[in-house]
């Protein structure tokens, strides 16, 4: 009996099966890795987006605190100060009792407080503005209203508040967004505002199904001197 040996005859069935199995295993591994990487990437993008939004918020708060108190009382004559108290800026407005007896920071002050801050500054409009940041639920709100004498800054800014940063978890975690110089008593003496934003990603992590949270901290210094 003659057995025909043909070296150019191609693969045997066994070789083909082994090749196919190997290819399937390798391709499966590659795709598995890809899917895993993709999920990881989606998760990280989620966090990065949250980080960027918190970063922008901290940057804006920092800029506002930098300009807090501009123009100060010493920019005017005493006569102008007495006649037009709305034409100079205190660094920070307070509640209750504004503009009368200042409250005590960390004590009787509702504002400035751990979740509420009102900066007074002319940020380019030629008029003093109250710029307020207030945590309401899980949303950090921001609003601006012109400073007017005999007007309460909380009441004046409440209507102008718009959502500025969502999913802020500081309230849930009982962690202050704003904290101030140690030992400071009067709102006008605040020189540095420590900012801590704990923000949860808007979507759950695709791999774990859990909502991830980032914590971003910063410090904003008031450059306008004490008055």
């Amino acid at each position: 009996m003659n057995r025909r040996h043909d070296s150019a005859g191609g693969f045997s069935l066994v070789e083909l099966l082994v090749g196919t199995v190997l290819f399937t295993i390798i391709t499966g591994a590659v795709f598995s890795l890809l899917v895993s990487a993709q999920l990881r990437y989606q998760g990280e993008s989620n966090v990065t987006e949250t980080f960027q939004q918190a970063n922008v918020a901290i940057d804006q708060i920092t800029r506002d605190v930098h300009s807090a108190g501009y123009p100060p009382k010493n920019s005017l004559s005493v006569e102008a100060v007495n006649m037009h108290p709305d034409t100079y800026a205190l660094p920070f407005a307070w509640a209750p009792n504004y503009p009368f007896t200042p409250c005590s920071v960390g004590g009787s002050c509702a504002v400035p407080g751990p979740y509420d801050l009102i900066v007074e500054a002319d940020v380019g409009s030629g008029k003093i503005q109250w710029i307020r940041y207030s945590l309401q639920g899980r949303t950090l709100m921001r609003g601006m209203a012109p400073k007017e004498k005999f007007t309460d800054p909380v009441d004046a800014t409440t209507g102008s508040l718009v959502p500025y940063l969502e999913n802020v978890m500081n309230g849930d975690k009982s962690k202050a967004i704003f904290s101030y110089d140690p030992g400071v008593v009067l709102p006008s003496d605040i020189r540095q505002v420590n900012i801590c934003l704990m923000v949860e990603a808007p979507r759950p992590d695709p791999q774990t199904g859990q909502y991830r949270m980032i914590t971003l901290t910063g410090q904003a210094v008031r450059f306008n001197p004490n008055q």
Partner: protein
Amino acid sequence: MVIAIFTLMLISVVATAMILMAGSETAVKGNYKSAMQAFYDAKAGLEEGRGRLWANNPNSIANCVFPGGAMMPTSPATRVCYIVNPSSGEIVNPLDLSAANPYADTEFQQEWGIPVTDANADVQPFINSTSAVVGAGIAGPLFKWVRITPRSELSSKIDVSGNGQPDDPNPLFYDGTQQLVSSAGTPVSNAAQVQVLTVTALAVTPYGSRRMVQYTVAPSAFAAALSTFPSALTLDGNGVSFTGPSGGNGNGGGGNSSTFQISGNDLNAPPGSPSGIPAIGYTNSDDYSNSDSGLSAAAASSNYLSPAGVSNVGLIPPSTPQIPSGLPLTLQTPSGLDAMVQAITLNADKVVTGPVTQSDSNNIFPTGMSIETPMITVVNGDLTINAWHNSGYGLLLVTGQLKYDPDASWNGVILVIGKGVFVSNQNGTGQINGAVFVANTRDAAGNLLTNLGAASFTQTGGGHGIRYSSHWAKATQALLPYQVLSFREIAQTTP
């Protein structure tokens, strides 16, 4: 084969997407970093401008800002000094207002209503930045220019006078508490005022981030408050007391009074034109009528001198528009004086915690202090100067008790603000050329008083006393750099 190619394509597409997204995130973070860098570069520019306004700065630009030592001209518009800081091979010309120039100074027109190229702007030749340390290979911050101008209602858009119209082009002055509109550059209501300037800086980073920031500055609170000293020895407060050597005012405790003198005659007055101030000044008229204060006894003594027509022991009333030479507001309250103490301490060459003793064998004063280089020394607490056979130069601020042995001399100003006690009961031939100011602002526990307390000056031993010197008073005031009155950022859009 087809499956393999398909797989490779899929992998490539996903990888490319990842690279692109990672790249965009890097760019976002880069932009943020660049914006922050621009802010701090611009702030560095402000600090260079502020620092070089100071006459004692080795690279002072005072001659540009104040030609011939005069105030900044302001009519009809302004005078502009620029510090420019180009990168290597770059041209920075804020006067080129073309749209293609990223460093054009268009902000000037916003402030003054005329382009900076207008002849009335009176732009001076550019001054180069000194921020880079070339020898050490240290590059400076990337600000592009710093502009220094006078400040007015018009330029600041602030209704300083309160008349409802922020449009007055006359320069503003600062009296330590408030800004006031001058009359064509002449202070209108108080002689103790200094001119207010605006310092503006633009920074642009290589990534194109732009930040512009602005300071309002004025000579130091000390200079503003004491641009003219009210008296050679000022006892500021309520219930003050003065005790001189026996024979000086008759209430002293002995010692050699033959050479002791407190004189308000200016040592630096031109020959033949005597001028000066009271030898001893007090601020509460009740203290003079209280014989325990020693003031009325001093007034009757020939040891306390002043120019003709000026009381040798005189009441220093609060400054008002009618009495411009009175005591500035800053010096009338414990809080005002305390703010001045803080400002001086921030700029001191040396701060020492008391109690300390200065003697021949124990030097607490800053190294390098000399007649050519007067310095600022602050002692937080008590200072005893004992058996120091030398001279000090500059500003000495003591917040506790100052015990002075007149073996030593001092050329400059001595401030005893806080405990407010000056004591000297030893003999010597030392003399204070300049002025002495004593105020009690804190109680024994160190708490700030509501009203000024009982400052006291006692020199019962010997020494030559105090001679008012306008030269040393001014030289001391010049030791303090310009202070920042306000700060703001000016929003920028990419041109």
